């Protein structure tokens, strides 16, 4: 419990997974500006490797990537680190996949392109409720 409370005070550590490099980088910068420690990665494989080394509070996961299906990455995340919250990003019209993701334990989803404020709000909600 104390540990979780510490999270709120400390910097929120976010893993950002999106194969669109430009998008991942700029989103990381903007979230960083809002007091979060964001690690952007650009492939599913990279995400799985990175998550082993760090202790992230939240993962923001694009469901549509070239090397791996986002849902597969989500399953691995939830299996290895069930306490880490996962927020999914989907394209417009792919809500079905996002709903599937929620069944596998994802916290919530946002439709791309989303307003930054919405994403920040979701991240805070996720860390508050904890997973």
């Amino acid at each position, binding site marked *: 419990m104390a540990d979780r409370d510490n999270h709120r005070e400390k910097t929120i550590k976010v893993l950002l997974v999106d194969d669109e490099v430009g998008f991942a980088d*700029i989103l990381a910068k903007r979230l960083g500006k809002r007091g979060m420690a964001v690690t952007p990665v650009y492939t599913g494989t990279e995400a799985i490797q990175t998550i082993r080394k760090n202790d992230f509070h939240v993962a923001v996961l694009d469901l549509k990537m070239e090397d791996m299906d986002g849902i597969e990455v989500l399953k691995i995340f939830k299996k290895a680190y069930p306490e880490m919250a996962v927020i999914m990003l989907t394209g*417009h019209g792919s*809500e079905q996949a996002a709903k599937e993701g929620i069944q596998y334990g994802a916290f919530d989803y946002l439709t791309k392109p989303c307003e930054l404020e919405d994403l920040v709000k979701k991240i805070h909600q996720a860390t508050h409720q904890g997973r």
Partner: protein
Amino acid sequence: MNQNKGMHNGYYYSLTRNMLLVIILVAIMPMIVVSSIILYEFDVSYHEKVHAHLEELVLKHKHNIDGFLKQKLGDIRLLGKTFSYEELKNESFLRNRLELLQEIYGPVFVDLGVINARGLQMAYAGPFKLGKALYSNARWFQMAMKSDYFKSDVFLGLRGLPHFIIAVRESWNGEPWILRATVDFVAFNNLVENIRLGETGFAFILNRKGEFQTKPLFDLIPTKEPYTDFLKDSKKFQDGVRIIEREDDSGNKVIYVAALLKHGDWLLVYQQRASDAFSDLKRTLRTTIAIVLFASLCIMVIAFILSKRMVNRVALADQEKEMISEQVIETGKLASVGELAAGIAHEINNPVAIMMEEAGWIEDLLEEEDFKERENLSEFKRALEQIRTQGRRCKEITHKLLSFARKTDSRIQDVQINDLVEELIALSAQRAKFANVDININLQRDLRMIKVSQAELQQVMLNLINNALDEMEKSGGTLKVSSALEGDYIVVEVADNGPGIPEANLARIFDPFFTTKPVGKGTGLGLSICYGIIKKMGGDIEVRSAVDAGATFRVKIPIPEDEEQPGN
């Protein structure tokens, strides 16, 4: 198009004609063939029957007449054999004999005479005053002297009346003498005159020279064919009957039946018009033909009506098929365009998202102290806001494209269309007020729930309302929205009285990317999305419009069949 129509008409015309011909051929031909065969057989057997009947009739009378002659001859021969020349020469005795014969046979024998070998009449009994007449030159006397007995032809003789003679030769003291009897013509004539059938059937007797031996009922010339033919060919039907059919002078077909009498001396002829003899047959024939004709007419009329109806159905089915295939093509076109659009939308989404985030990043940076003092800050902010706005526009376009590809939230749920329309009208009320547009709502209450995707139906209705408002933005007007139940469909109409749609555009109005709005104002996807959505619901969307008369969009949505209760 007209040529196409003409070709179709030709096709249906030949289809009707072929069907008609087949029905008529199959139905009428067997009837005509069977009727013809039956009629032919009937005709043949009826002819045979009539001929047989006439033959029998003539043969019977031939025997009657021959019997009559034979009997009369027998009587006279008996008289000649029984009594001697001396006895019969006595006129009162002879008169007694005549009276006796007349008592037995009636007035068949007119008179009796006894003639000696020189042809002088020795005694006479009868009504005429023939006294001692001399017959030596008479032909009958000469013939009678040559044989035992003789029957003459009918002749006028000394008395000037038609009669014929039966003469018997006997001898007394080595001298031949002759007993002669005259047979009454009327009595004999009756034998033949009684042969009457139908209206034109009668009989008469001719001798070998073609002279009448009885009085025919109708006038005719006995020295012409076929009577002369009968006489010529008489050997061929010595004891039988000969029957032929010939046309007479006035062109009528006549049946002739002939038989020989008196050992070939006389010819008994019966004749009757074929039309009279076969009148029953003719009547049957006429009735049958009338029935066949009537039946054929009925069949033709029915065949005509049937094939017309059938071809009309075929034409209707063809039309429906054509419409369906047109729709299939249209749907296919929309689907492929949709797939393309979805691809493009996905591709564009990412760069747009990056651009917007980069703009956001610049905004973030501008918040820092270094920039607060810069004089162009407000200009930066304005530019960034513009980038955001345009980015959102791009997002909207891609969302619309993706909706078009039917990847929006399409969960089916119970929707009360009136509620949905009222919500949308409320949303648009502000805009309508600015555009100086009156809203006129006329909704039919108690409409049943429909099972559709609320989001999609909303999209359709909003699109139609927005389009109507766009049309009337410049000059104001009235927006009429109504709902009604029509059969198995709920019909919603959205009508404006704006400038209307030119006829040339009406056909293309549901095509993707077709728009009349200025560049940048419309994507040309709104109505084609509406079209796709409504078609998917199993409904229909149509437009009625004319220039300066506004436009009315009419959306038909089917009511689910298995609904038990109306929505509440």
